[in-house]
């Protein structure tokens, strides 16, 4: 099991609420990622970070925002949740290899979000 944690595991919330999905890892990895995955579908990268104070948007446009103030912590925030945000959100981390490409990513268990 990877040492990467996500809370909450399940969240049911009303439209318009602000939510923060937590992700933390204890492996000291410098790279962290957020993916969005609908049931039975592929993962879409929505945010990534290559280190503290570094965040980038991924391939899939998302209304969410992220921050990376500490190496181990990479929270995702939705200022105003909508039903279209209903999905599973997966956090991952990896160790940077100097001059190299992406190596193994370690995933958290995911947060299933339902916006009513």
């Amino acid at each position, binding site marked *: 099991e990877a040492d990467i944690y996500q809370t909450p595991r399940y969240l049911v919330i009303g439209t318009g609420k602000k939510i923060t999905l937590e992700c933390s890892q204890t492996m000291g990895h410098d790279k962290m990622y957020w993916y969005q995955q609908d049931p039975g579908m592929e993962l879409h990268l929505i945010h990534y970070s290559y280190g503290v104070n570094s965040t980038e948007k991924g*391939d899939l446009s998302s209304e969410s925002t992220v921050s990376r103030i500490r190496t181990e912590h990479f929270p995702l925030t939705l200022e105003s949740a909508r039903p279209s945000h209903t999905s*599973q959100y*997966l956090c*991952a981390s990896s160790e940077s290899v100097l001059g190299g*490409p*992406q*190596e*193994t990513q370690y995933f958290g268990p995911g947060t299933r979000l339902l916006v009513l």
Partner: protein
Amino acid sequence: SQQGEEDPQALSIQEGENATMNCSYKTSINNLQWYRQNSGRGLVHLILIRSNEREKHSGRLRVTLDTSKKSSSLLITASRAADTASYFCATAGLSGAGSYQLTFGKGTKLSVIP
């Protein structure tokens, strides 16, 4: 996009049989990885094969890579009920921003019947 596409989308086999899943992609890659996802959980890394490798083994897993055809296959031998999961291939290559990223396919849903 260098998105991987798995084939078949779903596969159902008897315990003890072999399971083969295929992945095709569109652009050049540095490596290709296979991940497993149990229902409602995160992904677990299974195996990584680099672009200069053709075959790799790990326990009951065998992965092949054909860069000329831009395809890979994952073979699980002597399947067990516990192998029931979705299997994703992910390609690692340069993104438009000039950094390496993983791009995941849609996955193959494997059901192993006891």
